[in-house]
């Protein structure tokens, strides 16, 4: 009896495991694992190797050494930067969470007025490069900006607000992320089970009590997971640290890595050791995030029926809530847009005055339209981001199907496809740079290198879209196709891909939008002939050509807003009508 049980316990699962690997499904899993491994493992390997070896004068690898790590940890500068990064990331997270979260709740669950403004703000911010926002706020909050200008006119001395400081960075980064927080949290507020709140109201609870005791407690794990996610992204942030922090002599971990690569010759060993430290920190945080978000899923109480939860009636407070929506619109869209328009139509950088209206000029726009380089810049950016979005989606469609349906090798596929999350953009930039420098053919400074880096970096996002898309397809739709006679590849091609196409299109647009904004990796990898829009804007800023930067940025943001609108409406529609019931 016990012998029989043992045989059952050992023999059969092994047999079944072999069955899972045989046939076309097994080959599909194996080739997917191989492709993913070739993409995501080399960056990690090369970082580790360079951080542990001497770099010879000709760029080849020398003897093994721990010198880079020893130097890194011996320098007190590391600890200053780490502390700055920590303060920066946590405070900015708090700002965007409070601001974006409150806004999401007001818009989704109350009867506040002016809601369309919040959506408009979010859509435009999805497509606008961060660097453009940052420059706009730098102008607004800077020495010549309207706030400090007004302060001086009122007789104040010095600066009301020095934007080139840690606090300036925190405020800007917080505003930068609040639209995304708004987007993600509003989705979960929309899906929340209103009956739980209605039950509390029926039991006699006030709106405040209901929100405090029921809504917030239920949403807490989701909020915590989101906070951790935003914190990680803030830790990896590059745009604000380099544009605001570097002039203000506030160094963060990411800017330190960047500066090490800008030395002549570049301190690649140092940058790699630094990068490995960041990979470890981000990796640990991601593991924590995985735990928190799993418990968030357990808590999620999603309504099965398609009805919209009834909004809370805020009474007179609804006008205050509407005021907050207006404030968000002004801070995230209205003021930056006005500032950019002002700068782009001004002959030189100057304070905003009525008198200045008479000397407005189109010269910045004519400059943008007359330099053919700008056109090829736009072409480059569209080409690179479209190619990498397509590649990432193609790979992750198959990967997500294997992982979500727990076919052979599903775990390995899942791990490999989401591994690039541990690379902050600047770190992956360093790794890709080192790979390119060693490649036997000229790779550094080409568009292919950029596309490859983007593909690796954004695969986890494609995976996220495709994976949850597969989970939404009723399993029986695939099983019916199998019983009807279709093989695994037939099921994938004829059933899964067509049903997944809305999710895949959303994923593609998302990758395309964030790829077009990417600065941190692109700034390391772009050569003279392969610049992208964000890199070009960065150069314009560094060169002090704020007028042209604003003109170019506004035109680009206009184009990207078209894509962002498509993404936004697609995402809303597909969440409303999920296929396959």
């Amino acid at each position, binding site marked *: 009896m016990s012998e029989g049980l043992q045989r059952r316990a050992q023999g*059969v699962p092994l047999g079944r495991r072999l069955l899972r690997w045989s*046939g076309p499904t097994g080959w599909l899993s194996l080739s997917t694992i191989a492709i993913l491994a070739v993409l995501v493992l080399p960056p990690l390997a090369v970082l580790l190797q360079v951080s542990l070896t001497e770099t010879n004068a000709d760029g080849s690898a020398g003897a093994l050494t721990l010198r880079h790590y020893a130097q890194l940890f011996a320098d007190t500068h590391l600890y200053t930067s780490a502390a700055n990064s920590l303060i920066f990331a946590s405070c900015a997270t708090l700002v965007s969470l409070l601001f974006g979260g409150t806004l999401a709740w007001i818009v989704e669950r109350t009867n506040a007025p002016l809601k369309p403004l919040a959506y408009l703000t979010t859509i435009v911010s999805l497509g606008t490069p961060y660097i453009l926002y940052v420059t706009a706020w730098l102008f607004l909050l800077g020495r010549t900006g309207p706030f400090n200008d007004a302060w001086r006119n009122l007789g104040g001395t010095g600066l009301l607000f020095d934007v080139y400081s840690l606090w300036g960075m925190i405020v800007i980064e917080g505003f930068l992320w609040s639209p995304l927080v708004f987007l993600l949290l509003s989705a979960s507020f929309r899906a929340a089970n209103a009956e739980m709140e209605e039950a509390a109201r029926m039991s006699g609870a006030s709106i405040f009590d209901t929100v405090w005791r029921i809504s917030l407690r239920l949403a807490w794990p989701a909020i915590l997971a989101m906070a951790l996610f935003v914190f990680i992204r803030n830790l990896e942030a590059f745009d604000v640290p380099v544009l605001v922090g570097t002039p203000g002599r506030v160094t963060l971990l990411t800017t330190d890595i960047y500066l090490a690569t800008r030395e002549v010759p570049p301190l690649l060993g140092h940058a790699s050791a630094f990068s490995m430290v960041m990979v470890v920190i981000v990796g640990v945080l991601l593991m924590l995030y995985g735990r928190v978000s799993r418990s968030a899923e357990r808590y999620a109480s999603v309504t099965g029926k398609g009805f919209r939860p009834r909004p809370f009636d805020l009474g007179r407070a609804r006008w205050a809530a509407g005021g907050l929506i207006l404030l968000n619109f002004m801070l995230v869209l209205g003021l930056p847009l006005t500032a950019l328009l002002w700068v782009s139509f001004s002959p030189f950088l100057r304070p905003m005055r009525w008198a200045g209206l008479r000397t407005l000029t189109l010269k910045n726009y004519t400059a943008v339209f007359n330099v053919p380089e700008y056109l090829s810049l736009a072409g480059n950016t569209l080409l690179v981001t479209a190619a990498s979005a397509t590649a990432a989606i193609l790979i992750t469609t198959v990967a997500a199907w294997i992982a979500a349906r727990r076919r052979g090798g599903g775990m390995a596929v899942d791990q490999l496809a989401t591994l690039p999350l541990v690379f902050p953009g600047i770190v992956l930039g360093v790794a890709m740079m080192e790979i390119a420098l060693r490649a036997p053919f000229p790779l550094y400074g080409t568009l292919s290198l950029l596309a490859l880096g983007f593909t690796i970096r954004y695969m986890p996002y494609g995976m996220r879209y495709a994976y949850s898309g597969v989970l939404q397809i*009723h399993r029986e739709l695939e*099983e019916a*196709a199998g*019983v*009807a006679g279709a*093989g695994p590849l*037939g099921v994938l091609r004829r059933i899964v891909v067509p049903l997944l196409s809305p999710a895949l299109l959303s994923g593609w647009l998302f990758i395309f939008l964030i790829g077009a904004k990417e600065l941190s990796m692109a700034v390391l990898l772009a050569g003279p002939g392969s610049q992208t829009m964000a890199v070009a804007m960065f150069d314009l800023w560094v060169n002090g050509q704020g007028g042209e930067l604003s003109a170019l940025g506004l035109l680009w943001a206009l184009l990207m807003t078209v894509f962002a609108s498509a993404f936004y409406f697609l995402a809303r529609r597909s969440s409303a009508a999920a*296929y396959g019931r």
Partner: protein
Amino acid sequence: MENLVVQNLSKLFRNAEGPAGGVRDTSFVLEPGTFFTLLGPSGCGKTTTLRSIAGLEAPDHGRIALGERVFFDAASGVNVPLNRRNIGMVFQSYAIWPHMTVFENVAFPLRVAKSERYDRDAIKRMVDVALDTVSLGGFQDRSATRLSGGQQQRVALARAIVRQPRLLLLDEPLSNLDAALREDMRVELKRLQQQIGVTTIYVTHDQSEALDMSDRIAVINGGRIVQMGVPRDIYFRPANAFVAGFVGATNLVRGTVAAAASAGSVAAVDMPDGQVLHCLFPTAAARSDRIAVSIRPECLVLTPAETPAAPGSNRLDGVVATTGFLGNMNRYGIRVGDAVMHANTGPETQFAAGVAVGLHVTHANTIAIPDGVP
């Protein structure tokens, strides 16, 4: 034609707490054209059995063959992939692909068939025949998302039979329909099965569906078949207390065999309160065996107290405890000793609560069954 043979089929699921559902050691043989129903409560393993036959699950043990063709054999390591088995299946959710028209849904099995190539005309002809069979002629170009529940069900059925499979599997196909439609589809499904004459396995937890439609029924509990037979036997000759209770409502009272009984005979059973019931013994029992006595509520006839029992009938004495009027019948709860027995009578018999009554039941409807759940 060929028999479907399922031998010693086992498939156990485990979770962190240990075994969690599945089937153990299930065997049956179906002759061609049989309408066979797997009946049992949810989680009993009936769907696992069906999915193992379809090839959607790989069993741990056993053998499944249709005629000469072996689908699965753990001993020799044979496992024909599901798409090579040529089985028609209707899923609980119907699984109508929303991105295809009705025509494309039904044509799918023909388009992906590996064994045979169908040309355009053949596909058109076969799809039309299948749609006509389920009375959906003219729906070819309708989008699959614009179908009612009943229509989706018919499309699923047409898709399942379009390739003239040798086996048709139906996984609770009526459970998502509303009550009135369910009655219609039940008749329709049975007619259709007789018309094409395909061996059919039907999974349900609804006993009236099973009794109405099946040639044979297997009642499953805890992963095992506890009784297999024709509907009348399942209902009137339950093999154990579980079947008696699950298939239709029944009154179960415990007793002791007074004198040894052979299979098919009527023998006396001592009840705890001293009364004696004459019961039909479907299986032999020895003196002093503990048994359960099953009496269907509709088999009980209520009379005023002291009415003598007719020959070949038992009489129990009780007091009406509860009454209920259901329109087509009256439902009574009657206290007999410590127990409450349920009786369904025609709407014309009327007794008020608290009245003493006699309960009469023929010996043939007083069934002695082995006590305890197998």
